[in-house]
Structure formats: structure tokens, C-alpha cells
């Protein structure tokens, strides 16, 4: 792909982010400005900022990649990302704003008057935040590699530097402007190329094979396998091979591979004839143990996994640290609700686009399934389908949008994690320590992304959602609606629910238990059992410790739920 336009586009996005951030810096004066923009952000600006922050690399690149590889089942991701806001609106938005706390740990402390629960919530915020930052940095690395052939780690380092600088310098107010700007940038960067791609598709006779199973090659296509992989065939496949298949070297041999699993070594080139169904890279290849969903080919993907995905994304959104912190910037509870509705509209509109790229990717770049670079589909399609100067320019636009996605989500997450680190871990508070916290918040996932690598972007994000859904969702929902919640109950629920989800996810990522089947699905998609487990533990332990209900509970719940006009009257 021609990078002569893409690199300037990425540079422009980075510079614009820094400039818009600097504009915010001039008005960011007090600690309140720093953390929550002094609570003066109106619904429209705030909704664009929330959406800008929320639409991450997983949305921008990952969904199209997953749809390309695994088909329409993966569209549950964007549906879940959107519906998560509906649940947040229903159960959390207004009371959370009225709670008047700054962060999730603040909420835990305000509700339960317990330092221990506060610290535990802080630990989960940092954990979920780091888990979510990792794919952002990896996505940035992938984008830059696809565009310029730069080494994997470079993109992540650039994003880390820019984000640390903007967050440490300006805090939330500047971030609000940056995020709102980036929502519109991201929407444009997907919408404009999508329109041209659809025109190109129509000019091509509007082939509709993308919607059928499985995807097939439309023309003669040669694929170079970058990492060794296992090819799982349900039907025999005819292919021309340059390289090593099943341990035997071939040089331009036409092979009929029987059904079953075949091992393709790195560097092998496979040539497919038109009409050949695209085989799925599956099973334990080089690093496929890392990817729970890619490891299950379509037929094996149980219904259970789909429901697990739905539960995790629907309930996980409300507990994401960078989402929750945004609600404190609304001036009051009613504005928080209206903001959420606007967010639903904005991200819903955005999510109409990734499926278009996924479907076109299945038509025009099906070989990405094999190379393990499916996340790059969005970046490659303009060049592939339109080509020439137009394709380069559109590709540059998409690349710029992708970088906006990494920057915005990463800065929101860094903000949230740094806030917790500053308030609860570092010894003194204040702006200087906040800057130190920012550095720390970004350093850990950056190190992890350089060391680990290879986790598909949308998958890693799905894991963060599962942990959030099993720890923070019970805390928020029960904390807001249930009087009898006690500090031991909340702590136990978060530990059992969130902890088991985290363990299950870690086990899956470590490739245990291999093979597949029911135990594998249970561990790879923990939300279906870990969320009820978290709720149940929280309720049972709370009921078992009735003497520990905090004395101020009634007053706190009144503050959560009473409309502000009653409250202002009471305070005047």
C-alpha cells in the first residue's frame, strides 16, 4: 500500500490532537477542571466526546476484521457495544451523576463508606483499563505496520507518547474537546471511503456473495502466509503451493488437500483459483491459542458463546472506567440521561459502517483470513477496490481515522487509570502526581503490548468487557437500587465475579484447556456464568452481613435518586 499520503494523514491527526488538547490546556486551571471539566459540559458536546472516546480500535478496525473472518455472528459486537449504553441509561446514568463522585472508586466509597471496597474497585479499574489499553496500542502498531512496514511496536509507542503528553498536560477539559473532535473525524474517516467503496461495488455489478457462507475467492489470488498456521478444511481444497505444507516442501505444485487440519509454515505462498471457498485459519497454529474466537471456526462456535458475548457487551459498558468518568462531567442527572440518548444515536450511526467494510472485505480481500491480518481489512480495502490516487487518498483518510480511534480511547482510559493511581496509590494528590500517574498508567500496557503482541483487537476488548460486566455491573446496579448492599457483600461479589472472569480469561489466553469443546467455551466466554455469580455473591454475602449496612444508606440513596431541583431547593 502506498504510504505517501497515509503517513501525512496520521501525522496530521496526531498534530491536530495535540493542538486541540493545547487549546483545552489554556482553560484548564483547577483540579476540578482537570478531572471533570468543572462539570459544565453540555449534553451535545459531552455526547460527541463520550462517543469519540468509546469508539476504539476494536470498533474502527476490529469489527470489520472479525466479520471478515467469522461472518455476521460477529455483528453482535457492535450491537452489544451500543446496547450497553441503553442498559447504562436504564440503571446507572442519572443516579451515577447525582452521586457526585469523581470515579468508580469514589462511587464505591460514597455508597458504602468503606476504604477497602474503594481500593478493590480501584484495583479493578486499573486492571480493566490496562486490559483495554493493550489492544489500542497493538492496533496502532498494526496500522503503522500495514501502512509503512514500520516495526510492530512503533505505532504503539507513538500513541503512548501523544496520549501521555495530552493527558498529563491538559486533563479532562482538553480531553473533552479532543474526544468530541475525534468522534466526527472517525465518522468521516469511515463514512466517506464507505460511500466510494459502495459505488465501486455497484460498478462491479453489486455481487452479493459476501452474505453467503463461506466466503469465496472471486479471482485468482495468491496469499503469503506470514506466521505459521493450521488450516482446518471441512472439504478437500485444491491449491497451488510454494513453500511448506504439512512438513513437505513444494514448488508450484498443484495440491489436493484432503479434509482435515493442515499445517502451513511461515513464508508459504498459496494460490487459489476463482470460486474456491476461503478456508479458515483455525486451531493451534503459531499464536492462535491467544484468540478464543478465532480458534473456533464458524460451525464450532456454540450458541453459548454468542450469548456470552451478548451478556458481556450489554452489561460491561457501564463498568468501563473511561465511560463512567464521563458521566461526572454532565451538569446534572437529567443532562446525563439526555447525553446517553445522544450517545446511543451517535454510536449507532457509526456502527452502521463497520459491517459494510466487513462484507466488502469478504468479497474483495478474503485472503486476510489466512494471513492473520484481518484487522487491517478496513485499511486495505480502498486501495484494493478503487486503487490509484483516489484509493490512496481514501486509504489515508481511513488511516487518520484509525489513529484518531487509538488516540481517543487510549487518552480516556489513561485519564481514568491515572486518576485512580493518583488518588489511591501514589502518596500525595495534586496535579504533579497526576502527571506521574499518567506516565505509570501508560507504561504498563505499553510494555505488555511490546512483550505479548498477537491478541486480535476485538477479542482483547471483549475480555475487558467480560471482567467489567462481572465486577462493576453488580456493584453499580445493586449499589444504586438495593438498600441492603453491604461493604463485605460488594467486595466479595467483585472479587468472585470479576476475579473468576479474569482467571478464566487468563487461562484461555494461556491456551488452557486446549482443544475446544464445552470447557473451552466456558472459559473463553466467561460472562454467562461469571456475571450471575458476581450478582449472586454480592446479594448472598450482603444478606449474610445485615449488621454491616452503612448507616447513611438512606440518605445516600435519596441523593442518588432525587431530582436536582428538589435538592437545590433544599440547599439554598
Amino acid at each position, binding site marked *: 500500500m502506498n504510504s505517501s499520503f497515509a503517513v501525512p494523514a496520521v501525522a496530521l491527526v496526531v498534530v491536530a490532537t495535540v493542538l486541540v488538547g493545547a487549546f483545552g490546556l489554556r482553560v484548564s486551571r483547577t483540579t476540578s477542571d482537570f478531572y471533570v471539566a468543572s462539570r459544565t459540559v453540555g449534553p451535545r458536546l459531552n455526547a460527541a466526546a463520550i462517543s469519540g472516546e468509546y469508539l476504539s480500535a476494536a470498533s474502527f478496525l476490529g469489527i470489520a476484521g472479525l466479520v471478515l473472518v467469522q461472518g455476521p455472528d460477529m455483528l453482535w459486537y457492535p450491537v452489544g457495544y*451500543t*446496547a450497553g449504553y*441503553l442498559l447504562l441509561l*436504564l440503571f446507572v446514568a442519572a443516579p451515577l451523576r447525582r452521586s457526585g463522585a469523581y470515579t468508580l472508586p469514589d462511587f464505591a466509597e460514597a455508597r458504602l463508606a468503606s476504604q477497602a471496597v474503594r481500593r478493590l474497585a480501584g484495583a479493578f479499574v486499573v486492571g480493566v483499563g490496562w486490559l483495554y489499553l493493550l489492544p489500542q496500542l497493538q492496533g496502532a502498531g498494526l496500522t503503522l505496520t500495514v501502512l509503512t512496514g514500520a516495526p510492530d511496536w512503533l505505532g504503539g509507542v507513538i500513541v503512548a507518547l501523544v496520549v501521555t503528553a495530552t493527558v498529563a498536560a491538559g486533563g479532562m477539559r482538553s480531553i473533552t474537546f479532543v474526544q468530541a473532535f475525534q468522534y466526527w473525524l472517525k465518522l468521516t474517516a469511515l463514512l466517506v471511503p464507505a460511500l466510494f467503496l459502495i459505488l465501486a461495488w455497484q460498478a462491479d455489478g453489486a455481487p452479493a456473495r459476501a452474505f453467503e457462507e463461506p466466503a469465496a475467492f472471486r479471482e485468482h489470488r495468491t496469499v503469503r502466509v506470514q506466521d505459521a498456521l493450521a488450516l482446518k478444511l471441512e472439504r478437500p481444497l485444491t491449491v497451488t503451493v510454494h513453500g511448506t505444507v504439512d512438513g513437505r516442501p513444494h514448488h508450484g505444485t498443484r495440491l489436493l488437500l484432503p479434509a482435515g487440519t493442515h499445517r502451513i509454515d511461515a513464508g508459504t505462498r498459496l494460490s487459489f483459483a476463482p470460486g474456491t471457498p476461503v478456508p479458515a485459519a483455525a486451531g493451534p497454529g503459531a499464536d492462535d491459542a491467544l484468540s478464543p474466537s478465532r480458534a473456533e471456526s464458524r460451525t464450532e462456535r456454540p450458541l453459548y458463546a454468542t450469548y456470552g458475548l451478548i451478556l458481556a457487551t450489554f452489561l460491561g459498558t457501564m463498568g468501563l472506567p473511561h465511560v463512567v468518568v464521563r458521566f461526572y462531567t454532565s451538569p446534572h442527572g437529567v443532562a446525563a440521561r439526555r447525553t446517553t440518548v445522544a450517545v446511543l*444515536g451517535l454510536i*449507532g450511526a457509526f456502527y452502521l459502517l463497520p459491517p459494510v467494510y466487513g462484507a466488502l472485505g469478504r468479497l474483495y480481500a478474503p485472503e486476510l483470513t489466512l494471513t492473520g491480518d484481518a484487522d487491517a481489512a478496513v485499511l486495505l480495502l480502498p486501495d484494493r477496490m478503487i486503487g490509484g490516487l483516489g484509493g490512496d487518498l481514501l486509504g489515508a483518510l481511513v488511516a487518520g481515522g484509525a489513529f484518531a480511534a487509538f488516540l481517543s480511547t487510549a487518552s480516556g482510559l489513561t485519564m481514568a487509570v491515572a486518576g485512580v493511581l493518583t488518588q489511591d496509590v501514589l502518596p500525595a494528590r495534586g496535579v504533579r502526581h497526576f502527571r506521574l500517574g499518567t506516565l505509570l498508567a501508560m507504561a504498563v500496557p505499553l510494555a505488555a503490548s511490546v512483550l505479548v503482541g498477537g491478541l486480535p483487537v476485538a477479542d482483547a476488548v471483549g475480555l475487558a468487557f467480560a471482567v467489567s460486566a462481572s465486577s462493576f455491573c453488580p456493584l453499580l446496579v445493586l449499589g444504586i437500587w438495593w438498600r441492603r448492599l453491604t461493604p463485605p457483600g460488594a467486595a466479595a461479589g467483585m472479587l468472585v465475579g470479576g476475579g473468576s472472569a479474569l482467571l478464566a480469561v487468563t487461562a484461555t489466553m494461556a491456551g488452557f484447556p486446549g482443544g475446544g469443546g464445552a470447557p473451552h467455551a466456558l472459559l473463553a466466554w466467561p460472562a454467562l456464568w461469571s456475571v450471575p455469580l458476581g450478582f449472586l455473591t454480592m446479594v448472598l454475602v450482603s444478606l449474610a452481613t445485615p449488621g454491616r449496612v452503612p448507616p447513611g444508606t438512606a*440518605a445516600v440513596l*435519596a441523593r442518588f435518586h432525587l431530582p436536582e431541583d428538589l435538592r437545590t431547593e*433544599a440547599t439554598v
Partner: protein
Amino acid sequence: MPHDPADRRVTVTGPPRRALRSHRASGYYRPRTEIDEQTTLGHTYVRSLMRSQLRAALTVFAVLVLLVGPLPLLFAALPGARRLEWAVLGFALYAPLVLLARWYVRRAERNERDFVRLVEDR
């Protein structure tokens, strides 16, 4: 960053959480109504508001579950209907989500207005 001493940024610290809380607990609500005095009657009022808000939330939640819950089963039962799956998940579900949200916000705001009227008429 400005270097003029008059323009220099002063060191500010994080919000004193403890002070904030005790302030809230002790004097944040001036005793004017039953609610602020936290009498049993006041609690009953707050409970009634919470119940009506929770009812609105659960209603929308039930609609969402009924709308979304059967879809994976449906798609699994109709393996031939790939186009339907693309259309529903890629396009058709978003508008109902926004409509549900708008309906809930209207209902929740009405609950709050009714509550304010009830409390102030007393």
C-alpha cells in the same frame, strides 16, 4: 505553559474526599421537608420514586430482552437466512435501541416531575 509569575499556575490538590463526605452527611441537606429530615415518611417518598424509576427501567429492559434474546436462537435455527442476519444485526437493531432509550428518558423525567409536584404540594 505561561512563565510569568503572576500568571503561574498554583498548586491545587485533589478533592478532600473525607471532608466532602462528612459535609454531605451533616449539613448538605437543610431540613425543609420530610425527605431532608430523613423521617420515615421522607423515606417512603424516596422509595416510591425509586420504585417508579426502577419499574420504568425494568419495562424497557424486558422489551430489550424479548427483542434481542431470541435472535441468536432464530439465526441458529435458520442457517439459510444469512441475509436476514446481516440486515438485522448490521442495520435494523439500532433504531429500536434509540427509540427505547428515548421512551425511557421521557418516562423517567415524567416520574421525576410528578414526584417534585407531589412533594411540593404537600
